[in-house]
């Protein structure tokens, strides 16, 4: 890792901690959903709560990555400081790597409380090997949603990004079938879910965590999403450089 990447990581992290609104939201909302809407109902059903924990962890990752990156990038793009950064040498790579590293830390703040609640207060259980496998799968979810956040940050204004953040998570989660039982998911959702990135990411983590089978289509679509979002992010960054900001 280059020292410039470390520099950006340290700075972004300090910025995140010194203005912690987003950080606290991400750290408290998913675990709050779990405590109030999941644990009281299926907390002692080992199989159900294990899957639900996996799903909520993916939801936490979604909130953390999209919330963090879309706002950070849109703010930076509209600020004089962001303009100034573009006059410095160093290029895209260190900034992007740092964004991914800090994203991982914000993600940890979102998922560690969920995992702790699941482990301490519920019947959720999985062998260590499966947990590690699921952690690997989650990394792919992190990359996917980080790219989604970055693409939003580069393509939307700060205002639009903020609006998308406050209304966007629930539809994305619902369309991906995250909050439904496999057995009684509405057929409309069953139809569209494989094409929504939240479905592929959730499937991947649940396959790793519980060994249940997943729709190959949703996994293929996840790969398509990652490629497309990476392309959009790069394109957005380049387009951003050509625009006028002041």
């Amino acid at each position, binding site marked *: 890792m280059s*020292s*410039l990447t470390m*520099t950006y990581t340290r*700075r972004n992290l*300090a*910025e995140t901690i*010194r*203005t912690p609104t987003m950080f606290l939201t991400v750290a408290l909302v998913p675990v709050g959903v779990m405590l109030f809407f999941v644990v009281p109902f299926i907390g002692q059903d080992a199989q159900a709560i294990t899957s639900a924990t996996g799903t909520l962890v993916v939801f936490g990752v979604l909130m953390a990555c999209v919330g963090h990156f879309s706002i950070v990038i849109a703010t930076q793009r509209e*600020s*004089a*400081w962001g*303009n*100034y950064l*573009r*006059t*410095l*040498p*160093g*290029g895209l790579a260190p900034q992007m790597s740092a964004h991914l590293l800090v994203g991982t830390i914000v993600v940890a703040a979102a998922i560690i409380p969920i995992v702790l609640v699941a482990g301490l207060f519920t019947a959720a259980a999985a062998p260590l090997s499966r947990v590690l496998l699921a952690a690997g799968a989650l990394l792919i979810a992190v990359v996917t949603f980080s790219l989604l956040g970055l693409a939003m940050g580069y393509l939307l204004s700060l205002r639009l990004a903020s609006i998308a953040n406050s209304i966007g998570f629930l539809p994305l989660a619902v369309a991906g079938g995250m909050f439904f039982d496999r057995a009684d998911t509405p057929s409309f959702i069953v139809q569209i879910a494989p094409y929504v990135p939240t479905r592929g990411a959730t499937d991947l983590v649940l396959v790793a965590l519980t060994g249940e089978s997943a729709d190959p289509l949703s996994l293929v679509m996840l790969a398509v999403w990652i490629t497309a979002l990476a392309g959009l992010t790069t394109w957005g960054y380049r387009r951003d*450089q*050509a625009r*006028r*900001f*002041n």
Partner: protein
Amino acid sequence: MTILARARDLTRRYNDKTALDGVSLDIPTGQVLGLLGPNGAGKSTLINVMTGLLRPTSGSVELCGGDPRSEATRRVIGVTPQETGLPETWRVAELVDFVSAHFPDPVSPAELLKRFDLTSLADRQAGGLSGGQQRRVAVALAFAGRPRLVFLDEPTTGLDVDARRALWDGIRSFHADGGAVLLTSHYIEEVEELADRVVVMDRGRIIADGGVAEIRGRVQLKRVTLTDAALPALEEVASIEQDADRTHLLTNDVTALVRELVTVGASFTDIEIESASLEDAFLAITGDRRIT
């Protein structure tokens, strides 16, 4: 003499407004070039195009022999963030360290802070600094990477006299080491203090270009400001501007104008006589005095 920056026929349009209209400009090694002009003349647009932040609609820019956006070019130029642009939660020392980390051979942060008289502010967060202090930090950042060419857009706007002098000293020591500067300013004194050459812009064009003395010599204007609600028509006045209850008279012959004022019995309340700025002068000369 090596040319560090070469702009050729730069034009930049925003929708139907032309901000730059065929500007060509060379900056040689070691020159401090002062860019003057009224608001909206195209100074900031020119700087943004030359530093690669804006693409010109047509024309070309070459900095140190390369594209302004190339990695090699960015290592040898210095730019300031705009006035309110520092991230609020960052400490001054953190800002300096951060910017220095981008360059292969940066000035030591302690030395940079000292050169711009910022040592005592090193531990303060940028958001807690006064406007003038923020401005000084922003200017210092342009020098962090030992650039060969620095772009300073209104570096001393809003600074008190001491801070301005401290900044001038920093720019002079850079110049003494052979650095080149493109500087925009509202203050004629500042350009006279620092610049080897003056370029005046108006409406997106360069309307004058020469040494400081040469430009001054072409301009004998003085500005006489007084408070008198009922001035009659005066002969020696090149142009008149009204600003609340103050009247600004621009004249080519201040002695004759004062005699005339005495003759017509004008009120001398709070009268001030000062050298007109180059902006005043050129706008008066081009017959284009806008009421501001």
